Structures are given as C-alpha cells and as structure tokens.
C-alpha cells in the first residue's frame, strides 16, 4: 500500500508543521552527503543550486551541452503566484482551489496547497536573482491573466518567462559550480539507477561525447528530467526531451502514476506535412486578447477575411460564456477537435481553427486614440495604432508564427491546432517527493503530484521551482539525516558492476541488430499510434488495439532497428534509440492506464464517458484515486491505488460556462 | 587602443588646423601671405619647450598605438583557428571596420615618408631654406619645402592614398574609440557617430587638398 505521508492537521498548517518537525542534517554532515541530480531544468537547476548552498555535495547531469538549455527554457507565458498584487481577490486558497479544480479533482490537496503557499516565495527569490520580469511604469511587477482563472496572478517576462527563470536558476547553479559545491556533467545521460540494500545509491551515466559509461555514487538521487510528451513523436517538447531517467527508475521499482494524463495544448501551429519534426506552441497568453473561431458553414473554403462576421462561430465564447476564450487547456483543445472533426476546420489540412487578433487590434487602437486625445482618426490609423500595441505585447510570438508559416498574423488570423504539450503523469512521489524507492526523488514535471488530470497555464514553472527551491531542501534532510552513518560511498561494489553490465549489454544489443529501420521512423510510427488512439480522445477499442500495435512495434524495434556508428563515440542515433525504446514501453503503459480509467477527466477524455453536451464526465465514486503502476515484468504492471481524500474542496463537475 | 586613438585624433585636429594655414595664401584670401602664417605656426610648434615635449608624447602615442594595434591584430587573428570557407563579409560589418590593421599599416608606411620629408629636415638636420618675417626671427621655410615635395606626382598620389586610408581608419576608429571608452548612451552615441563621420571626411579632405593645391599650384611661394 502506498503511503503518501501527508502530514496531519488542517490543510493550511500541514507544510508549516512539517517544516517545524522535520529532521535536520547538521552542516558538518551535509558536506559528507552526496546528492545526484538528473536534469537541469527549473526543478533540477533550482534543486542543485539550493542543495549546493546548503552544503551538500551535488553532482548534476544533463544531456545538453549546457544546463541552461533544458526545455524549461521554452516556456513562454508566465508563472503563477498568489501575490494578489492586483488586489483582485487572489489568495493562497484561491490558487490552491483553481489548481485543484483545473486538475479536475485528481490531485492531492496537501501537495497543491503547499505549492500555492510557496508560490509567493518563488517570485521573491527570482526577483532577487535578477530575473527581469515585466514591470509597470511605477517600477512594480506586472501581471496578466491565464486560462482557468479569473484573477491576474501570472508574472511574466515578455514571451520568454521560462528562459528568464531558467537562467536565474542556471546562474545560481553555476555559482555553486564555481564555489565547488556542485559538479556539473554536461552531455551525460543517466542510463540506470543503482540500488544497494533497497535504496537508491547511485547511477550509471553515459558520456555522450566519448560513449564511455561512468559510475556515480550518491546518498540520494533526484530525477528532474521533465515530461514524456515526446512519446507522441510530435509535441512541443524539445527533440531531446525523454522519459529514460524516469523509466529506468520505474523499472527499478518506482511507481509510474497516472501515465495517461497528458495535456494537449490548444494553441499550437498546425502540422504542415510528413517532414515535420516538432510542433511549436503559441503561448496561452494569446488567448487573453485573441478570439478563436471557425466558419459557421461546413467546409467553407473562403479566406478568413472574406468570411463576414455573422458567418463566424466563436465557439468558445458561445459554449463557455463565463470564461470564453480563457477556458482551461483541456476544454479548449477538445472544443477545437470537436469543430474540426465535425467538418468546420480551416486551412489546407482542415485541422486548424482561427485565432483572430482583428478585434483586439481595433480595441487597442481605439484605446490608444483615446489616450492620445485624437478625434476623427481613420480606421487605418486606429488599426495601425492597435498593431503597435499588439506588437508590444506579443511581438515575439507573432514573429515566430510568421517565420514558421510565412503568413503575417497582423493581417490574417493565425491558424492553430492542439498539440501534445505537458504530461501531468509521472513518477509517483509522496509528500516529500520521494518515490517508492528510498532515496530516489522525483521533482518537477517528472513527478505526478500537483496538477491532477490537467495543468493550468503558468503552473508548470511554479511547480518546478517550488519543488527545487522550497520543497526538496527541507524534505531531503528527513531522509539524509538517517544516512549520515553511511559514510563515503564507493562505486566499487557488485551492484554497480551489475548495473553497468546490464547497460553495456543493452547498448551492445542495440548496436548489433543492424536492421533496416531508422530510429526516427520507429519513433514516428509510435507517435502515430499514440496520437490516433491515446490522444485527445480515447476509447476502449482504440486503446486495446494500440496496446497490441505497440507490442508489435516493440518486437520490430528490437529486431530491425538500424544504428550507425560505434558505441564508444559521439553517436546521437544510439542515444535516441535508447530513448525511443523506453518510449515504446511507456506507450504501452499509457494505453493500459487510459483503458483502466473508465471515466473522462481533465486531459483524459474517454469517448464512452461524456455528458450530453460533450463535456468530460468523471466517475468520482470509482476513480477518485491516483493510478500508480508498479512494473512487474516486461509487459506486466500491477495497479496500486492511492485514494484521494478531499477534506476542504468539494469535487463537483467543472463548469466554465 | 581607444585611448591612444582618441589622443591621436586630438593631434589630427591640431595638425590639420596648423597646416590649413597654407590656404591663407589662396588668391581670394591673402595672396601676399606667401606661407607666412603657416611658417610662423610651424616655427612656434618647434620653438618652445612645451611643444617639443608634447612632440615626444605624440611620438610615444603613435608608437603605442601602432604596437597595440599590431598586438591586437595578431592576437585576434589567432582566435579563429580554421578559416571559414564562405565568409560573412559585408553582411555583418563594413569592410573598413574589419581592415583597421591594413589601413593602419598604409598610414604607418606613409608616416615614414612623411616624417622623413618634413619633420627630419625641420627638426634634426635643419637643411631647410631660412626665411624671416616682420620681427626678424629666422625660421625654416616649410611652406617652400611643401611646395617642392608636392611637385612629384608620385608623392601626391601616395598622400592621396594615405588620406583615403586615414578617412576610412577614422570612419571606424572615431566612434569605436568612444565605444571602447564606454559611451553607451544612445543619444551621445548617435551624436558621436555623426561627428565621427564628419570629422573623418573633413580632416581627410583638408589634408588631401594640401598636396593637390600645391601640385596644381593653386597656391605657391612667390
């Protein structure tokens, strides 16, 4: 039975009480304790920096050439915090409540409340590090609104909040490297967890430049390797984003929780062809001012500007008058899919809807004319002024759209379509962020804990930094306090020999297959199965088929893959092969989980379970639990359920109408 | 680099100003000047201890600028390693910004000729024709010397090439020097940029006009 170890007491006192009673490690002992951190995104870099500052000996690993390139960098829109600087009724409780509700009541109350509590510290910390957040003329921090909320609590730095926050964490990390507290291993990939006496005691990592396998011992291992959206091949994740570290942990005994909870982001640039290697997100902040529509007539082939106003269907505003274009991501995505499936899609592929800024441009233009006390301005002048304002707010996003599509979004509406963006599922962790393996932690997107079945915009950055800056520095001490007697660790022991041997054999097997299919094509095929049958809408038949198809694909992969080059060399194809092999295994588990969850909630939409007007239909009586899967064989998993008890929030059907 | 550059820019102002005195002899100004104004100015520069010390400082400035320049050029050239097969060329920067070493070398070569033609006979060997004006003080007739030197078309050509080099050297060097010294305020940078372009052109054209005017005998000793 999984024990989440949620502290007793009233919700708002849990974290404070925990901090007051948690075991501590004295500074002299911290120097003797080694912590291994996999991944240097927001969670990993912030954890590495904070633990380094505390005095632990930290080793941090990333597969990129610099820790600053982790994919957190690509987050555009912003980071939430319950600061209530706007005096619009925000509070820790509201952020907590919005997150629980946004997650469709599939997240833990205790974790989420803690997240809301520390959210304010994150902003303070980042400002102190020199993160250049957007500011008002008075010099104070600026906020904007995001999907699924009715307050303005999102802090941002133009369209690159992720990059600015990551650079803040990266700089803090490099400072610790300079001070000798953190040792950084770039272009390294973790390929196995080493277990000694039932505890995580180290890793086997591969130097991606030389191909050599390395052993690293640690008193604790932190997996901060991000999400697994690339299982769909096409996603907004970086090309290198992978599940390998989390998957190795899973195969060693860590539970994988809610793997089927994937977030499909509603505003991405549509697919153009077979050649496509990745999808590009257009920030959710665009929904602040943009209006989403499709033609009212089926298969309308007219250009957007030729479709008159009364022949446009602003379907989000029509269906959800209260939240309009700012409904949560899962709702917006499904609504877009519903329109396209019904034949109202636009563009050559018909798999797209319009995101239109014409109204916003006019509105801002008029405001601007008012500000400047202009009268008798022509429409053209108003539009020109409006475009200036829009450019100021969203210029970099518009430029990006233009570069990719060749179309000018100031003149014609953007075409958008949902794409895989984030994975709420991940390694099961308790309140202390520890997996089922003692000494093995999971932070950030790699764990499952805070977003339930759907994540609200601007909450991923918040969670990554909360885990790294403000949670793990406290909770890890509770475990390490017991480890001070372990003394210095050696990699010279049978467990390391075995782990290294198994990694080596796997690599050698991969190289020896010498088949005909490239890793890329295999990955594409997996992605297609996942998107078609375990994507935005799922059903029993499709999922059953998918499981079979993935098993076939796995066989084919291990008998027909072709990897060029050598093992002991810089060999990106080999790196990728290992990752895709893990994705294939994960894909199977995702389908199993989706099949098991006979309800619709958040990002998981089972066609069999919907209300009359097509909204997700939860079955709280049967599925109010975290589905934590334990690996017991190649194709076998054991389901362990962690029941979700809502003490404060009363689950209801989510309504954004 | 920037500091010595700015110092030399200061010198150029004085040099071009003094030399421009020859134009006092222009027919429409004061045809009877006959180089008096210029010769007096040149004499002043060579006759007080202060200016002679400044002269030493100037030489030091030149030498420092040249040594620094070559050091920089040599160091920076090594930083690339393997050369590109296709270069960025003028798509990223002006050719003269990338050719400060070459332009500087041209100016340096010219300087040798220039110094041996005027400075050496005037300050070291003293083999220039004397001339005396109203107060009876005898001084070198540098004006005459200039006229003689600039009768050779080859020398005139050399001077013109040098002036062109100087112009481009200054086009980049003027604003670059200020940037090196840390001017980053947009308002001042814009001003300095315009000033730099103007300075480069005016100074070079004035210098270039001297050999031309003498060669074509627009001005000449009587």
């Amino acid at each position, binding site marked *: 039975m999984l024990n989440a170890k949620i502290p007793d007491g009233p919700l708002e006192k849990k974290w404070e009480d925990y901090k007051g009673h948690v075991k501590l490690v004295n500074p002299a002992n911290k120097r003797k304790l080694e912590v291994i951190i996999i991944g240097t995104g927001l969670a990993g870099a912030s954890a590495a920096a904070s633990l380094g500052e505390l005095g632990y000996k930290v080793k941090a690993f990333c597969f990129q050439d610099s820790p600053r390139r982790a994919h957190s960098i690509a987050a555009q829109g912003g980071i939430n915090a319950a600061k209530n600087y706007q005096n619009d009724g925000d509070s820790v409780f509201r952020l907590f409540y919005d997150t629980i509700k946004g997650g469709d009541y599939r997240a833990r109350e205790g974790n989420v409340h803690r997240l809301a509590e520390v959210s304010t510290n994150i902003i303070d910390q980042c400002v102190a590090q020199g993160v250049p957040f957007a500011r008002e003329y008075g010099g104070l921090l600026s906020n904007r609104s995001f999907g699924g909320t009715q307050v303005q609590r999102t802090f941002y730095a133009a369209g690159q909040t992720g990059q600015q926050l990551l650079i803040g964490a990266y700089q803090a990390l490099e400072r610790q490297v300079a001070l000798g507290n953190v040792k950084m291993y770039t272009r390294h990939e973790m390929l196995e967890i080493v277990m000694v006496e039932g505890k995580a005691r180290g890793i086997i990592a591969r130097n991606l430049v030389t191909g050599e396998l390395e052993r690293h011992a640690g008193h604790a291992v932190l997996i901060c390797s991000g999400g697994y959206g690339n299982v769909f091949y096409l996603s*907004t994740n970086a090309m290198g984003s992978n599940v390998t570290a989390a998957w190795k942990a899973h195969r060693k005994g860590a539970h994988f929780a809610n793997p089927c909870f994937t977030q499909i982001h509603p505003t991405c640039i549509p697919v153009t062809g077979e050649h496509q290697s990745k999808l*590009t997100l257009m920030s959710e902040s665009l929904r602040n001012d943009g209006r989403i529509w499709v033609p009212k007539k089926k298969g309308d082939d007219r250009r957007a500007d030729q479709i008159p106003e009364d022949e446009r269907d602003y379907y989000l505003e029509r269906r959800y008058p209260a939240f309009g274009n700012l409904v949560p991501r899962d709702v917006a995505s499904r609504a877009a899919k519903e329109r396209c499936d019904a034949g109202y899609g636009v563009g050559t592929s018909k798999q797209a809807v319009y995101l239109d800024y014409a109204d916003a441009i006019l509105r801002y233009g008029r405001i601007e004319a008012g500000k400047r006390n202009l009268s008798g301005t022509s429409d053209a002048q108003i539009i020109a002024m409006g475009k200036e304002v829009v450019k100021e707010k969203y210029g970099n996003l518009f430029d990006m759209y233009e570069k990719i599509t060749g179309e000018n979004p100031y003149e014609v509406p953007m075409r958008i379509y949902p794409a895989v963006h984030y994975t709420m599922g991940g390694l099961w962790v308790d309140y202390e962020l520890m997996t089922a393996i003692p000494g093995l932690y999971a932070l950030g997107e790699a764990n499952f804990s805070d977003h339930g079945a759907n994540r609200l915009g601007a909450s991923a950055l918040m969670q990554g930094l909360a885990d790294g800056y403000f949670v793990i520095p406290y909770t890890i001490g509770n475990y390490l306090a017991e480890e001070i007697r372990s003394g210095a660790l050696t990699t010279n022991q049978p467990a390391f020999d075995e782990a290294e041997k198994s990694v080596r054999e796997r690599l050698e097997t991969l190289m020896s297959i010498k088949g005909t299919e490239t890793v890329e094509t295999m990955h594409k095929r997996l992605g297609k199965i996942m998107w078609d049958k375990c994507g935005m809408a799922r059903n029993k038949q499709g999922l059953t088929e998918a499981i079979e198809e993935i098993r076939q694909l796995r066989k084919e992969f291990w008998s027909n893959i072709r990897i060029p080059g050598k093992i002991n060399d810089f060999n990106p194809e080999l790196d990728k092969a290992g990752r895709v092999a893990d994705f294939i295994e994960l894909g199977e588990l995702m389908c199993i989980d989706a099949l098991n969850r006979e309800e619709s909630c958040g990002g998981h939409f089972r066609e069999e379970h919907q209300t009359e007007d097509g909204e997700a239909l939860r079955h709280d009586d049967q599925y109010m639990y975290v589905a934590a899967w334990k690996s017991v064989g190649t194709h076998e998993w054991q389901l362990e359920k962690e029941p979700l008890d809502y003490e404060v929030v009363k689950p209801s059907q989510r309504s954004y109408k | 680099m920037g500091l010595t550059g700015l110092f030399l820019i200061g010198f150029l102002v004085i040099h071009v100003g003094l030399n421009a005195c020859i134009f006092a002899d222009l027919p429409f100004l004061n045809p009877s000047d006959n180089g008096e104004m210029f010769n007096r100015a040149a004499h002043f520069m060579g006759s007080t201890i202060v200016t002679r010390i400044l002269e030493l400082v100037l030489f030091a400035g030149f030498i420092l600028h040249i040594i620094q320049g070559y050091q920089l050029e040599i160091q920076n050239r090594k930083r690339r390693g393997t050369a590109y*097969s296709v270069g960025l060329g003028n*798509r*990223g*920067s002006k050719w003269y910004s990338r050719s400060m070493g070459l332009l500087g070398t041209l100016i340096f070569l010219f300087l040798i000729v220039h110094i041996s033609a005027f400075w050496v006979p005037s300050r070291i060997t003293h083999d220039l024709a004397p001339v005396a004006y109203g107060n009876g003080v005898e001084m070198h007739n540098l004006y005459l010397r200039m006229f003689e030197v600039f009768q050779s078309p080859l020398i005139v050509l050399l001077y013109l090439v040098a002036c062109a080099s100087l112009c481009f050297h200054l086009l980049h060097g003027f604003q670059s020097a200020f940037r090196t010294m840390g001017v980053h305020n947009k308002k001042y940078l814009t001003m300095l940029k315009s000033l730099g372009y103007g300075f480069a052109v005016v100074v070079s054209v004035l210098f270039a006009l001297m050999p031309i005017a003498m060669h074509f005998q627009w001005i000449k000793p009587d």
Partner: protein
Amino acid sequence: MPSATVRAGWCVRFYMEHYNMNLTLKVWRQDNKNAQGRFETYPVKDVSSEMSFLEVIDLLNDRLVKEGGDPIAFDHDCREGICGMCSMYINGRPHGPWHATTTCQLHMRAFKDGDTVVVEPWRAQAFPVIKDLVTDRSAFDRLVQAGGFVSVNTGNAVDGNAIPVNKDNADASFAAASCIACGACVAACKNASASLFLAAKVSHLALLPQGQPERKSRVLSMVAQMDKEGFGSCTFTGACEAVCPKEISITNISRMHKDYLFAGVAADK
C-alpha cells in the same frame, strides 16, 4: 508589415504558397576534435519550402543511415528558437540568411531550386569541434561561473515589489537577458570575441538594482575569464549584432567597457 520582415528579406505573403526544390548541401565533416575536417557534398531532392532547415538535415541523415553511411552530427534541441543549441554557419552566415533567426527557425523558403548550401560549424579556438557541426561551447558556462550571477541564496529574498525597478532599465535588462548563448556572435566576429555574450550578461545584471553589489567584481572577473578562454577582443565591427538571433545590441558592449574601466580604476588590488 513589421520592419523586421522587410529586413529579413524573406517572402511574406498573407497566404503562403509552397514549392519543392532540389538542393546541393556542402557539409563540413570532422570525425573528432583532433581529426582533419573536410567538406562532403550531398544532393538532396524534393525539399519542401515548408520544411525547416534542420528537417532537411534530418531527411538527409535518415537517408545516410539507410545507405549505411555516417549521419551528420549537429546540435539541436528545442527547435523553437530559444534553447540556443542549434549552431550552423550556413552560406557564410551564422544561422543562415534570415535576420534574427536561429538555425532551427530557418525555413526552406529562404532557398530556391538548384541552390548550393554550404554548412560549417562555428569556428573559434574557444569552441573546438566535437564532431562535424557540433562544437564545445562549455567556455560560455565558465564565463557565467566567473561571476554572471547575483549571489543570493534560496530563501534570502525580500518581497518582489520591495524594490521598484525603473521600467526602462527593466526592459533594457530583459533585452540583454534574452541572449540564448548560441555563440553566433563568436562565430561571426572576425576576432572570435565573446564580448556580445559577455556584455549581455553584464548588462542584464548591471541594469537591475539586484546586480549592483557585485557589479564591479563581476565585470572584472568575467572579462578576465574571457581572455583566459581564448576569445578575441572587441573591435566594434558590429558583425555580432548583425547576426544575433535575439537582436542583442552592441551598445551592451560599450556599457560593459564603461563598467570595466570604472571597476578597473576603482579596484583596490
């Protein structure tokens, strides 16, 4: 139409038309750091104008693997122009012909049928080639280690709104901080100087109140580290600014020089 578009010189229409093309790629191949490099020529057929440049390399690599060849090694990750990993010197320009664009965002409508495209790695002594088009840019990390941070431990912070920041400074700081550390500035500079990268970091922090306590020591030690890493010095040719995908202004270098001079003059030791 935004002016960036005009400068970029790519064809922007309200509605895009697509075409296919055949290209010849001349790519730098180098087995490892110490090996002798050479150009290899690859014809690539049926390239869609909608593809990104990296997708063409993907296509070529897929073919090379199937033919039993060695695929071209190149750095890439996010493919949305922000991670700074991609780094190709295309037809004599870092990140290719488009203005303010990373290699991954360069799309094939920048080229026409029959074009020959020469692809080289960043070339600088401080960025040794690891393989083919992949270079070692760890020098940038070491520059940041030399002082590119604010020394504030987690938990030390005061309220975010306790220190107002003049909006112009905040905006200028952000503009400098938008640097993605791709190294195009080094690749373009005739001196292989990292001044623009360094100045972006120095300015980012120098323009904020949080960066003041360490302002002087930061610039001194970061500049010293730059020399140690083997980057050249700045002669203000402006090539870095012209190729920077994030349009970082060369003015930042002047600001860094000012800080450096002041710090140097005021230095106690």
